[in-house]
């Protein structure tokens, strides 16, 4: 997990969704943030937009419980890497 990716997740959750900063930890699952499914989808959109990437739908359904912020950051890192090297698209 790239620290800057987690920092971005942290910033979006705290600034935009007003989640308590102390609650934003890598091992915290999406369904432990106090956000409902609609707000969670909005949150994932917001972090994707921040990096101008998309996490493929088969890799993440934000309505699924149990995905941690660390896992989300890793998925974002993958998407960022894919964007940086276009030859591995679909890879």
């Amino acid at each position: 997990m790239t620290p800057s990716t987690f920092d971005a997740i942290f910033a979006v959750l705290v600034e935009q969704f007003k989640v308590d900063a102390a609650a934003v930890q890598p091992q915290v699952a999406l369904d432990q943030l106090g956000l409902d499914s609609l707000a969670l989808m909005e949150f994932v959109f917001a972090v994707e937009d921040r990096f101008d990437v998309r996490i493929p739908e088969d890799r993440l359904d934000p309505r699924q419980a149990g995905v941690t912020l660390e896992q989300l950051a890793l998925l974002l890192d993958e998407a960022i890497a894919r964007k940086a090297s276009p030859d591995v698209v679909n890879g």
Partner: protein
Amino acid sequence: MSSTARPLAGAPVAVTGAGVVSPLGNDFAAFDDALFAGRSAVRARALEIPGVELPPVPVAAAEFDAAAVVAPSRVPLDRCTAMALVAADHAAREAGLVADRFDAERLGIFWGSGMAGASTFETTCRSLYAEQRRMRPTSVVTTMPNAPVAELALRFGARGAALAFACACASSAVAIGEAMRAIRAGRIDVAIAGGSESLLTPGVLASWQAMRVLTPLAAGADREASAQRACRPFAADRAGFALGEAAAAFVLESTEHARARGAVVRFDLAGYATNCDGVHITNPDPAGQARAMRAALADAGLSAEAIGYLNAHGTATTAGDAAEAESIASVFGAGGVPVSSTKAIHGHLLGAGGAVELLAAARALAAGRLPPNANVECADPAFALDLVTRCARESAGLDAVLSNSFAFGGTNAVLIATRPRR
């Protein structure tokens, strides 16, 4: 007025709190300061739409950070909903309304907005079409006309009612009046009522400009000065209005409920009436307006002579002001009541207009001073109005005030506020 007219009147409803976010300021000190000085908050704004050239428009913006507002639902808020939450919080605080002091099933939210989340919808559609970005999953719940009332109901845990009123420029006056009726009818004890509107996005501004109701601005160095005096209600040289953004909220309660919890009554809502012209989509009908004013007076059990100040709808359009000057004169007689339109300084607040203008009238009632109708060098000589021009007018003993709201679509709404009689 003789007591025989009283049976038609309804009981007054107590107003125990108010709150505002507006171009004049977001607290009563700032609001009163600009209101009684007649200081215009209207400024010039460029319409930045790529590939389209349009002249700038006059707007009255509120100094307000929507991003600092926490949504009860945690989804993003349209600016007008964020304003609604802040105004309602202020009102509830002033009223001393806390969760353990009212029955949630007896609390209703009554809220007016003309187009509510239209500016959010414009922004999201622009990213979809121009930037090929996805629509957000919350676009619907942010845009819907009842978005403000939904968030307010969540904030205050209201279980009695959550009703949104959309009748253009009369929306929030109707919302307040219908809350008053629900309390009088005994269906609820307490209401948070008012309205909000924030539509200062390029597409919405261009829509109003296309109707030719916004005052065209001077070019070059005179632009800013012409923006500040763009809205000149009842003036001979009136040329249209400026759009503004605002929210105003009131806590309404039955007199018994206010008394039982020991709340301070700020003013009474004494009368309300709404009707429809049923004549034309935009042209106002003086007969419909006069019927509405007379019905509100009957509802309050007051004669026309009892009204010491009338806050006019006064949009500063040629046809609108002429119709209203005629209807006011027909009800109150020539020069029969002091009149001003505060749209000159806060702009046309559309769905929020009725609520903010009721607040302006209530502040006049509290201060015993009448706010001036700013920007008028020369009143239209065709109007038989006692227009309060140039500066505020002292009015010791002011006891009853009336606020007009007349909408596109023909909806008229009139509210009457009085000093509390207890």
